[in-house]
């Protein structure tokens, strides 16, 4: 009985930190009615020095268009390994993309910035359409994009 309790305590102690190290975060991106085709969006993170850390999502599956997401492409060289398992469809004008990701707690209040590059066929590329610091206080506060994104919010 005593050993059973000890085992239970040990497994609980090992499990709880793992659960606390990440949390589900919803990233909501609403597009303007810009009157064009589906927008490609690259969501990625840079650290305090501006260096690329990793990608969170890629909206748009055709790699030939990735060079138009200029900030992301410059950082990654278009490497598909950066977005394996986090790539979805492009987003139509006037529509809203809602992504729920299990993100590491260490991302918040640690100097990281979330960037969104946007590109639409036959329209101007928009690198760094959104750049928002990842902080606990900034959660839920909508941010406006420069060209195609009407609002972006994480919470």
């Amino acid at each position, binding site marked *: 009985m005593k050993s059973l309790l000890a085992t239970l305590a040990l497994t609980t102690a090992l499990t709880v930190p793992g659960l606390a190290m990440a949390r589900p975060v919803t990233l909501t991106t609403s597009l303007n009615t810009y009157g064009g085709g589906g927008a490609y969006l690259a969501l990625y993170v840079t650290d305090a020095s501006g260096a690329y850390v990793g990608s969170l999502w890629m909206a748009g599956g*055709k790699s030939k268009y990735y060079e138009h997401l200029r900030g992301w492409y410059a950082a990654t060289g278009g490497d598909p390994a950066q977005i394996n398992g986090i790539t979805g469809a492009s987003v139509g004008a006037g529509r809203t993309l809602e992504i729920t990701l299990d993100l590491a707690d260490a991302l918040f209040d640690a100097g990281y910035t979330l960037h969104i590059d946007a590109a639409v066929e036959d329209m101007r590329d928009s690198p760094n359409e959104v750049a928002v610091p990842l902080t606990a206080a900034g959660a839920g506060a909508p941010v406006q994009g420069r060209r195609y994104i009407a609002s972006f919010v994480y919470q």
Partner: protein
Amino acid sequence: MTSRFSVLFTSTALTVALGLPALAAIQTQGNAQGRCSGVCAAVFGADDLSVPLVRVSGEDEDDEDCDEEEDEDDDDACTGALGAPAPAGTVAPPANGLFGNGAAPVAVTN
């Protein structure tokens, strides 16, 4: 006398065991190059070349899928120079330190 025979027998057996495979290989190459000429010799001697085979094709239909002018469907993956990424849900997110080990990514477009 018996020991001399045994030494002789052993050395002969060793010579045969080592020599036969080498002799067979020499004869195979000799047959290919000696009895054939031109295309025949090239075919039989192809295994000795380190140059990779080159496939010749008139049209590559896969390339048409990546043609910007003819492509209307934005959701189809196109294998470019670097290849297409794996769609969400088919593989785990990249291990870039941004993701936890919890639920898989979910995306909804409204």
